[in-house]
């Protein structure tokens, strides 16, 4: 069988394996969802339970906490495989470093960030989000969260060989999350004030596409470097 024919089932197998690992004992997906729930419910205690105040800050709070929840699950993205040596094996496989990053990012998105987007409406209820904004909230998270996984993958790959690299990874990738956050929250805010969220959504999609192009290449380069 030629390399191309073998690489697609391999890619799918890697995605399946990582999704399974994320949801099994010791995986990070449940942890991220739990963090999302608990951290959002801290805000009414912090700013007071006044419904108008909560509604005003709801899009921002939900987006920021979703972003942080995605990040805390990222530092293990490559590290577990790096430590037990399976990353070395994977690098020799026909899918190559870009294929590995793509599979890891897809698995992270499916297992962790996509559930965050699906849980978001429940957080909207806690934060008193106005009815007209729910659709845009889910849609903006669906469009924007792949960028979180992609950019995060660069940070995770760069710090894979660093002991206690988690905090360093945060320092590297949080600034790069700023455009995604701005346009994501902008879309939900627009829907909340009954204006057109489409321009924000288009820019959000553009950010995700740039992250797709830059993120996979940069992750692959960083992985190659770490395993030299």
């Amino acid at each position, binding site marked *: 069988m030629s390399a191309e024919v073998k690489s697609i089932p391999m890619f799918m197998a890697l995605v399946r394996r990582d999704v399974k690992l994320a949801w099994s004992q010791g995986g990070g997906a449940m942890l991220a969802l739990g963090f999302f729930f608990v951290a959002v419910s801290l805000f009414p205690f912090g700013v007071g339970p006044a419904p108008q105040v909560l509604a005003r800050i709801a899009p921002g709070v939900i987006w920021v906490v979703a972003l942080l929840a995605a990040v805390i699950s990222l530092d293990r993205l490559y590290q577990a495989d790096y430590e037990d040596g399976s990353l070395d094996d994977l690098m020799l496989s026909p899918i190559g470093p870009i294929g590995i990053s793509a599979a890891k990012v897809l698995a992270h998105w499916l297992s962790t960030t996509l559930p965050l987007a699906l849980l978001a409406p429940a957080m909207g209820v806690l934060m008193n989000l106005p009815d007209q904004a729910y659709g845009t909230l889910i849609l903006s998270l669906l469009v924007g969260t792949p960028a979180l996984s992609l950019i995060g993958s*660069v940070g995770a790959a*760069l710090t894979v060989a660093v002991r206690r690299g988690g905090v360093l990874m945060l320092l*590297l990738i949080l*600034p790069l999350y700023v455009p995604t956050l701005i346009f994501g929250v902008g879309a939900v805010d627009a829907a909340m004030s009954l204006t057109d969220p489409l321009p924000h959504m288009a820019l959000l999609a553009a950010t995700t596409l740039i992250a797709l192009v830059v993120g996979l290449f940069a992750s692959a380069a960083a992985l190659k*470097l770490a395993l030299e």
Partner: protein
Amino acid sequence: MHRFANPAQFNRLADAILPWATGAFVLLLGAGLYYAFFDSPPDYQQGESVRVMYIHVPAAWMAMFTYMVMAVASFTALVWRHPLALLAGRAAAPIGAVFTALALITGMLWGKPMWGTYWVWDGRLTSVLVLLFLYLGYMALWQAIDEEEKAGRAASILALVGVVNIPIIKFSVDWWSTLHQPASVMRLDGPTIDGSMLMPLLLMAGAYQAYFAVVFLWRMKLEINRRKLAVARQVSMHAPVGAE
């Protein structure tokens, strides 16, 4: 380009440039500060506070310029494995971080009397803050990985990813027309700033550029000597006992 890969040759070149750059820095800074503070008119709207601009605008230009130097060095280091390029990126980063911080701080000091606030989350201010974080991240990554060669190349990848931010800074004032004023010097239709203010501004920009050249070359030489010292230490450590 690989002609300068030889550290000895680079050192000779740096030694030849340094006195000129230092002289240019002193002259330009002297002239620039004189014009900026004594021989340029106060603005008809901003009054004397306009003089902050002569410190602030060149710092902001240099913050972006230095990042591009770092990015080009990173690219050269990753693609051609140029031995001095990693050191060039490392030498440039703290200088750029200081320019960025200076631009932010002078901007805040100017903003308080003019806008009535030290800080707003406007597009320009936010993207320059992100630039500062990118510099800090680059330096932190250099620091975090034990093996220097690897640390430098990891940091280089980060520097290249961060290049996305540079056009965002440049065009932020056009995309989000909030508080920060749009460009008045580097415009396609020529500068809209008056000549009496443009002159001190350009002198100060030249002074900053010369300052960058001086400190950058110093830091490069420092890095090269530090490497030499590390190698010499290793050699003497592995030398058999009594070989000295």
